[in-house]
Structure formats: structure tokens, C-alpha cells
């Protein structure tokens, strides 16, 4: 009988993942890596997108030079943030934002994302919720 117990990265209290570029890869940690399904999921949500983004990368140099892990591309449940290797920057698909607030609450450990709510009446609109 053998038990497969994964070893998760655990930080010390008070420490953040920012600056920790020596983390084991998600594959090594045994995280699921299925094909992206987010686009299908977002297709089920009704959006009324504003013309202007309510999300902003504060300093793209931080994404480029300091954040090797591109944390936001994993943490955002709507996959709003994507790393474009050619342009060396994060693109922000704000139209599909579910307004949860992950990116302002540690989803970017560098606190490099400014999130506001969309203007009244704009954004995601749940029919079930």
C-alpha cells in the first residue's frame, strides 16, 4: 500500500510569494493541468463590457523583470491576464472579468494590478449566481 502525498510549497508566516522565484513548478507539485476550459465557461456568463478597462497593470517592468512566475495568469479565475511572450507583456482581457477581486487581494503578489469595479451597470451579470 502506498500513499502519494504531494509536497506543497508552504511559505513562512508573513512571507509572500513575491520574490520567491525558486518555487517548484506546478507540474512538480501535482497540480491539474488540463486543456484550458475557461473560454467555454466564460461563454456561459452574460457580460455588458464597458469601453474602458477597469483593470490596469501598474508597471509592466515588474511583470517583465521581477515576476518570473506570472502569478496572475494562474490566479485569475477568468484568465483575464495572459503573458504575451513576443511583446513581453501581460495583456488584460477586462471584458471577461468576473469582478471577484483576486488580482487586488494577493493574486498578484507584487501588488502590481490596480482593480476597480466597472462602472454601474457594466461588467458581469449573473443569471443564477
Amino acid at each position, binding site marked *: 500500500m502506498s500513499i502519494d502525498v504531494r509536497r506543497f510549497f508552504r511559505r513562512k*508566516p508573513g512571507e509572500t510569494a513575491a520574490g520567491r522565484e525558486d518555487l517548484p513548478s506546478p507540474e512538480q507539485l501535482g497540480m491539474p493541468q488540463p486543456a484550458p476550459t475557461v473560454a467555454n465557461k466564460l461563454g456561459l456568463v452574460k457580460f455588458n463590457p464597458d469601453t474602458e478597462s477597469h483593470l490596469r497593470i501598474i508597471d509592466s517592468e515588474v511583470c517583465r523583470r521581477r515576476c518570473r512566475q506570472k502569478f496572475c495568469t494562474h490566479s485569475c479565475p477568468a484568465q483575464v491576464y495572459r503573458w504575451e511572450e513576443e511583446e513581453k507583456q501581460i495583456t488584460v482581457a477586462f471584458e471577461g472579468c468576473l469582478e*471577484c477581486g483576486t488580482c487586488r487581494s494577493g493574486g498578484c503578489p507584487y501588488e502590481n494590478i490596480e482593480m476597480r469595479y466597472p462602472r454601474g451597470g457594466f461588467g458581469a451579470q449573473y443569471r443564477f449566481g
Partner: protein
Amino acid sequence: MSAATSRYDAIVVGGGPAGLAAAYTLAKGGASVVCLERGDWSGSKNMMGGLIYSQPTGSVFPEFWREAPLERHVTRRDMWLATGDSAIKLSFETADFAVEPYNSFTVYRSSFDKWLSRQTAAAGALMIRETLVEDLLWDGGRIAGVRTGRPQGDLEADVVIIAEGVNTFLTEKAGLSPCPPRAANVALAVKEVLALPKERIEDRFDLDPGAGAAIEIIGETTGGLPGTGFIYTNRDTISVGVGVLLDSLVDNRAEAYNLLERFKQQSQVRRLIQGAAPREYSAHLIPEGGYSCMPRLYGDGVLVAGDAAGMVNAINSEGANLALLSGKMAAETVLACRERGDFSAAALGRYRLLLEDTVILKDLRKYDNATKFLSTHHHLFGLYPELMAALAREFLTVDQLSKAEKERLLLKLFRSQVPTRRLLKDFYQAWRALT
């Protein structure tokens, strides 16, 4: 909204359970109150992986279950310890929860909150939708109103009740928040609503017509990360979701939607949702920092209620009930202050005293260490369910090994996975955190 300086007794920011309970109670008490909601309607931005409880909800909106849009009254609560291929299932079921006033309900927040807002408007509160509050208006050190995103959208009032939810933009601006939501004190929940005919739901979940089940799952569901999976039955849909503490999600670069997909593919879950068509995907943060992460609950001309005030009992998955109660207490405080015309922090401090006497502060204080404990004890979510399943599997497998040999084998396994001292320490700390 026309006049630049519309004036009210109270402004409530946010049309969720906390804000609506506050606005409803204020309007019933004869105060002029405006409630601002950024969505197209109350609930259009909301989702939950929890239940609406009759008693606390009924204490604000009497006998709501007779008219409100509810999905199912919950008669069964399950807790599963799951591994990849096995599960230990604990189930509680009672007929007591099947009769009025029931105990809890599954709901769609998009329709339930909308119904609450209609009751609030009918009670005399002015509901303004599609309106984002962007800033607070100050008069010296006192909060005197709000600035909305509308042209000439300044509103003034004696008191502002902040019920903005988990993203505490205004609570932070009011200088009341000592620890704004950071990864260590929030959980990210993602959920899918899957459609299945009502009879098939009742067959699969073994339910009487109209009755519902709520299942909470720890273990493999979240890839062993600190969090839970959940399954709730609605009338003709099933809600399936996972909630994980954000810091461990970020550290491990796990994607919430991938955890959800894996959860849905787990055999015990897959059987329940097979053939059910996805109808909606949603995501929301839950403030799980507990008592020590609550903001100051009052200041000059301001009160904070609900998720904005960190009022979530993560251990029992309670939030909406605490939001409703806190909104009601905030309104009662304002009504009392209104009689004396004093809305200073000293007078509004009565809110905190009222809350001391409720389950809100009593339960949050009781479980203050629980979130911290769970977030530093990941193995509780991964290893222990595995060990429990191994124990059950070994004892239920009849083969050539004697029971004494099985005991020895299991003891060896336990010791190899958890040193005895660690095991004792875990139990001691769990006991300390939960009692």
C-alpha cells in the same frame, strides 16, 4: 437621481444581504434611506456556495419562505473525506428540516437578492441600481456622504452604512480596515451551475420532491490545498464548486477552474452530475480572515456590515446569515442614534455592543484561530483523508491478512506518513482552534 445634494438619513452602499437588511430595517423604522447597487439588479453580481438560513433571514424578512424565490429546502447535509478514488461519507438527514419554517434553503442569489430588494423598496427605501459608489464625502473627520459614478451623483446623509462586500474599496478609504483583503485571509470560490431535470436530481441524490442536499467535500477535491468542494441541489440544476485559500492557490500556481474540472471528474462527483449541462460559471472571494482581520466596525458617520466587515464563519460556511444580522443591527443602531441626533463614532459604537450579543462576534471570536490553523496545516486536507481512506479500505478488504496484521500494517503506514508527535500536535491544535 437629479439634485446634486440629495440628503437622506442614511445611505447604504451595496444591495446584497447586509445592505438590504439595513435599508429594509431603516425604512420600516421610518428613516429616509437610499440603497446603492452597482449591478443591474441586486444579486446580479453575487454568487454563493452556501445556504440561506430561515431563522436569521426570517428575523429581518418575516416568513420570507412563503414568497421568496427559493430552490430547495435542505434536508440532508453531507461531509465527504475524498481521495482520488475513494470517499468516506458522513450524512445527516432529518424530517425536521422538511417542515416550516425549515432550516435552510438553496437559492440563486441573482433572483433571491432581487426579491429582497423588492421587499426593501416596498418598505420605503429608495433603491438605485446600476450605480457604483466611487468615493466617500468627508466633512472634516466625519463621513458625510458618497460620490457615485453618475453625473451630479453626490449624496449626503447623517450616516453611511458600508455593505460593499468582500472587496473593501470604501472601508479602506474610510480608514477602518487594518488588514485589507490579502491572499492569506481570503478564499477564492469558483462554481458551475449544471442543469438536470428535477426528477433525476431527486433520484440521484435520494431526495423527496422539493427537498435538497448540501454536500461539502475535503481532500482530493482541492488537490490537497486548504479548501473544500461543494455540491448543492437546486430545483433543476446542481451547483458544483471549489473554494481554496488564495495564498496556497497562488503559491502553487494552481488554477481554480482546473481544480473545479478535476473535482467534477472525481468518480463520486461525476456520477451525480453526469449528463448535466453547464449553465453558468462564477467566481467570488470569501473573507476568511476571521475575527482578527475584521475592520473597525464604526467611525464618525459610518458603519460597516457583512462581508465588508469580514463577517464570515468559514468553519460552518456561514456568511449571508451574518450579513443579514449585521445589516439589521447597523440599522437599529442608526435608528437609536437618530432619536438623539448624534452620529458620532461614540454614539455609533453601540453597533459593536449589539453585535457582541449576537452569533456574529461570538462565533467569529470562537473560530479566530481556525483559518490560520487550516492554512498552516495543508496536510489536513490532503494527507488525513488519504490515511482515513486507507484505514477503511484495509479493514473492509477481506484477504489472507489477519486483523492484527492489518492493524500493524496501518500503524506502520500512519507512522511513516505522520510522526506520532506531529499527529498529537495536530489533534491538540485542531482541538484548540475549533473549541
